[in-house]
């Protein structure tokens, strides 16, 4: 599991790669929050790129909602992009797209 952040203009892209399950969720949370903290100034939107995720279960739902709540405190909307069939199926089922739209 690896998390990288890149700022392009006013958009903060956070890409998650590898396996996101309960075992590595705590590390994923910590790393994502650390990267986000350094970049919240001048950020207008945050986009989570899930294109390189090789495995994700319902842990991903909790992970994304947790990050959404943190960004919401700064008034920054959050989006997800590059979903594969399974991640899309899981997120669709959870109804998460109403607060974190897919782009």
């Amino acid at each position: 599991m690896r998390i990288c952040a890149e700022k392009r203009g006013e958009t903060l892209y956070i890409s998650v790669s590898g396996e996101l399950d309960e075992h590595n969720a705590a590390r994923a949370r910590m790393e994502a929050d650390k990267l986000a903290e350094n970049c919240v100034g001048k950020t207008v939107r945050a986009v989570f790129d899930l294109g390189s995720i090789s495995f994700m279960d319902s842990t991903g739902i909790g992970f994304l909602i947790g990050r959404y709540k943190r960004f919401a405190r700064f008034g920054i909307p959050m989006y997800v992009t590059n979903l594969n069939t399974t991640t899309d199926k899981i997120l669709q089922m959870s109804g998460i797209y109403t607060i974190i739209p897919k782009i």
Partner: protein
Amino acid sequence: MKNYIKLELAALGENEGFARNAVAAFALSLNPSLNELSDIKTAVSEAVTNCIVHAYSHEKGKKIVIECEVERFDEGGELHIRITDFGVGIEDVERATMPFFTTLPEGERSGMGFTIMQTFMDDFCVESKMGEGTTVRMRKRIGCLPTQEELKACEKERVNA
């Protein structure tokens, strides 16, 4: 003859990946599609995670037993999975399997584990006894031709879209 495996593992987070990959590897003999394989891995991961996170209140002797069976037909086959823990048990199974129900919301847990198992597999049931443990049984048809009902549902979905 039906093929069968039984795995016993410590209920530790680091075994989550091994457990789902081992079951997926066993299912390969049924020649599943990538999506079917992915569904199996996700459902197993949910069940095993439940055993690790919820089943045991004590540190000693935490274990999970995974049993799988494959049955081959002329057209495709079936995978049966049974995942058992010997932990605290679930007080109200019906409530626990409701979407978004979780006893541990503070850990950013979604409460969607059982819902995912139910949706990703063809059959799913939970048996639990307080103080004795919990067994999740799941069944998935692999590589079978769709039934008439499934074809009708697909057609309906296509028309609606």
